[in-house]
């Protein structure tokens, strides 16, 4: 089974802190994604990475950055956390293999509260 692991289930941070959300996948997938999930808004893509050191902005990248130094790990960084970044953050990965193309595998999520 594919396993996507997010390092924290719950995080509480203060406004202005630098926050790191970590995601690791164990299936050698090329693509990795960071979403935020808010009630009534569904999932919105923050950033996407299609290879090591490669990244692409999603729909709501403002206030976020990402890092992918190794294929299995994709980090989301909040440079200076703000209260409007309180949300559920979901990491996903997917392979390029044709038969599994576009099927994304998700971690359990990190619920971040910024106070």
């Amino acid at each position: 089974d594919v396993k996507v692991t997010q390092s924290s289930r719950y995080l509480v941070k203060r406004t202005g802190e630098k926050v790191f959300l970590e995601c690791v996948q164990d299936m050698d997938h090329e693509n990795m994604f960071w979403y935020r999930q808010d009630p009534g808004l569904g999932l919105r893509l923050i950033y996407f990475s299609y290879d090591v050191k490669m990244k692409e902005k999603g729909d709501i990248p403002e206030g976020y950055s990402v890092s992918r130094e190794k294929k299995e790990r994709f980090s989301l960084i909040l440079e200076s956390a703000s209260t409007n970044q309180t949300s559920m953050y979901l990491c996903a990965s997917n392979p390029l293999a044709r038969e599994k193309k576009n099927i994304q595998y998700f971690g359990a999520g990190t619920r971040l509260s910024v106070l």
Partner: protein
Amino acid sequence: AQSVTQLDSQVPVFEEAPVELRCNYSSSVSVYLFWYVQYPNQGLQLLLKYLSGSTLVKGINGFEAEFNKSQTSFHLRKPSVHISDTAEYFCAVVGGRNTDKLIFGTGTRLQVFP
């Protein structure tokens, strides 16, 4: 541009009743469609997908969906729901040509009552 609309934010239903969760899409390229389920305090998992071929797609846990090109719909159905089906359901479409990104709908919360 690709988009997905889930008109029902919540669907309450009694156990053993049938259910339909609606999804309409807009796409300017070949249509690949997905339904994902999110159980409480978990991430999303794939229920079923339509890539090509038969328009009736069967997924896990007794769910099925029908791709209707003329109505641009991909509604999810189950003939008899169980309490354990209580979850949030997301419809998604591939975000365009030559992309691996998905566009998700806003979700439908299915609440099954005994």
